[in-house]
């Protein structure tokens, strides 16, 4: 990267470097001030979209999505629109940078929305206010009902341009929606956009469902269902709603995840008091045994290259994290700190494993390198577990349960997210109580 930059300087000596960049590797105490100007819209387009989408001004709605995403990332500080001196129609002109400088904006997003051939066309530009330069200009065309996704895609582009890494906004979360008393919880599979919108329940709540996880294309989900009181691993096609059992062995199958190529499901199979790890090839249904040990081996998760598996085992006497080759050879314990370790999940970047740790009555979400070194605990709570990585490996989502009061009341389960830096801890809003989140891949690039 450094070479490329040097090269650019050499061949373009008159070009000044853009001034703004955002460092996402450390807790960001000075988020970048950014102005998201409402996208301008002509009257004709506005009326058309109002009819189709029942939104008064789709231009401002999309800009609000971008603004909220940027704020949630913790890296940006979207400025109050009341302070803006220029109207949205700057989309057609060059911004008056001194006006934006005055309100301390370092970056500016402008754009416009058009109704063209029954489609939604959104054009946006990212400006470096201090340098007085355009950093990016793109346009998207899609069906009007995809308007929220346009907001997310714009955020992803801006995030990538300013941080140098892919975003995670055009994504969805699959999770377990919960309701009812703690002793008789009703649980349903649910899916929503990363920002909590477009929530949809995928099962009715007639049977207990747990631990849904996306496949790499985010179209399929594998999860545990207690259908007919037989806890088994299932596969669900989100679009068609088709469900099928994949782990129908004489015993309990659970803790499923997809392999990085999406061709296999890896899971635990419990029988006669011991749990081992198996894979099933989804095409030919060939089952392979990966571990064979009288202990509990569970929570398997592949490395992104598919060569290794991290998993949870109590073969040492207590729950610890292990890694092995994908064929089950070379099993190696990697967690040696005090306490119990569970739910290892390999980062999409490959360099870290996120986990849950239980120590002295407290639960932690943490990360360690794949050899077990460099353990860092990100957050401590009464009860929390099951981290899932954002597709760029910068954020973890997990769930937290509250302590009940003396009468055993006041229980709740909620989704939370935290940056890998340990900063920016946030409640992820859901319609109902929620647990077992799984983050999709980026839906578009």
């Amino acid at each position: 990267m450094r070479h490329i930059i040097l090269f650019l300087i050499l061949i373009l000596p008159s070009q000044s470097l853009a001034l703004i960049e955002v460092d996402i590797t450390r807790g960001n105490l000075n988020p970048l001030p950014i102005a998201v100007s409402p996208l301008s819209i002509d009257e004709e387009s506005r009326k058309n979209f109002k009819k189709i989408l029942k939104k008064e001004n789709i231009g401002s709605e999309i800009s609000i999505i971008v603004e909220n995403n940027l704020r949630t990332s913790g890296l940006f500080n979207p400025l109050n629109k009341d302070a803006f001196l220029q109207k949205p129609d700057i989309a057609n002109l060059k911004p008056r940078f001194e006006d934006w400088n005055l309100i301390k904006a370092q970056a500016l997003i402008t754009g416009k929305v058009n109704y063209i051939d029954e489609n939604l066309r959104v054009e946006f530009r990212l400006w470096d206010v201090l340098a007085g330069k355009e950093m990016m200009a793109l346009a998207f065309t899609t069906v009007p009902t995809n308007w929220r996704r346009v907001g997310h895609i714009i955020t992803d582009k801006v995030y990538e341009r300013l941080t140098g890494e892919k975003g995670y906004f055009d994504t969805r979360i699959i999770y377990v929606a919960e309701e009812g008393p703690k002793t008789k919880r009703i649980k349903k599979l649910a899916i929503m956009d990363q920002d909590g919108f477009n929530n949809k329940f995928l099962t009715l709540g007639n049977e207990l469902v747990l631990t849904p996880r996306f496949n790499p294309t985010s179209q399929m989900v594998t999860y545990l269902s207690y259908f007919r009181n037989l806890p088994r691993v299932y596969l669900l096609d989100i679009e068609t709603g088709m469900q099928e059992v994949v782990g129908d062995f004489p015993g309990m199958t659970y803790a499923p995840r997809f392999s990085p190529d999406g061709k296999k499901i890896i899971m635990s199979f419990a029988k006669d008091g011991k749990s081992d790890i198996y894979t099933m090839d989804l095409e030919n249904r060939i089952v392979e045994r990966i571990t064979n040990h009288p202990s509990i081996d569970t929570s398997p998760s592949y490395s992104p290259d598919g060569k290794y598996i991290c998993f949870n085992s109590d073969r040492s006497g207590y729950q610890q994290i292990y890694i092995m080759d994908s064929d089950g050879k070379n099993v190696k314990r990697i967690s040696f700190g005090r306490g119990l370790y569970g739910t290892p999940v390999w980062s999409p970047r490959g360099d870290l494993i996120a986990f849950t740790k239980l120590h002295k009555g407290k639960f932690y979400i943490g990360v360690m390198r794949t050899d077990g070194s460099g353990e860092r605990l990100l957050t401590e709570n009464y009860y929390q577990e099951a981290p899932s990585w954002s597709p760029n490996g910068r954020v973890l989502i997990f769930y937290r349960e509250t302590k009940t009061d003396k009468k055993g009341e006041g229980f709740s389960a909620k989704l939370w997210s935290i940056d890998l830096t340990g900063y920016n801890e946030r409640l992820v809003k859901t319609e109902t109580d929620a647990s077992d989140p799984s983050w999709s891949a980026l839906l578009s690039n």
Partner: protein
Amino acid sequence: MKPLFTCEKVSYTKKDQGAKMNLSKIFKNGFLVILACLALTACATKKVSKSQMQGDVYTGTDTVEYLASGVPDRVFFATNESVLTTASRETLRKQAAWLRKNSDITIVLEGHADERGTREYNLALGERRANAAKDYLMTYGISSDRISVLSYGKERPVDSGSNPLAWSKNRRSVTVKAN
């Protein structure tokens, strides 16, 4: 779910050639180490009425139901354990005697864990506990054909409390008539 999206570069303004963030620099900088939160105390050492627990195994009868007169339906376990206590073995011998007398009855052993563990490990632990009960019943002459095992992990507590006594009631294997 890949709806049609088209993306075009808008090119009538000069594109900025500015520098992106220098990745190699990031990795050199390493990560800012966060401060692990301090202050853990209390909680694990709360006082519990001793009459209802031995070690941390529940010995009370609050939640116990009966398969028949004098035949308790459940046994309790220590934290993270699936070892049967003396009292548990006595309960299971009573169940075995009752099952021998009622040879048409089949049962499900429902294994449970408390809420202080990760979900997936607890599913395995519940299965292990139910199997400990199953093995014992089998040594007392009950055929494995009459026994099925079902683990609920931490999903079905009987006591919704967040204290050691509640947890001890929830670490259990319950024998349920299946027919």
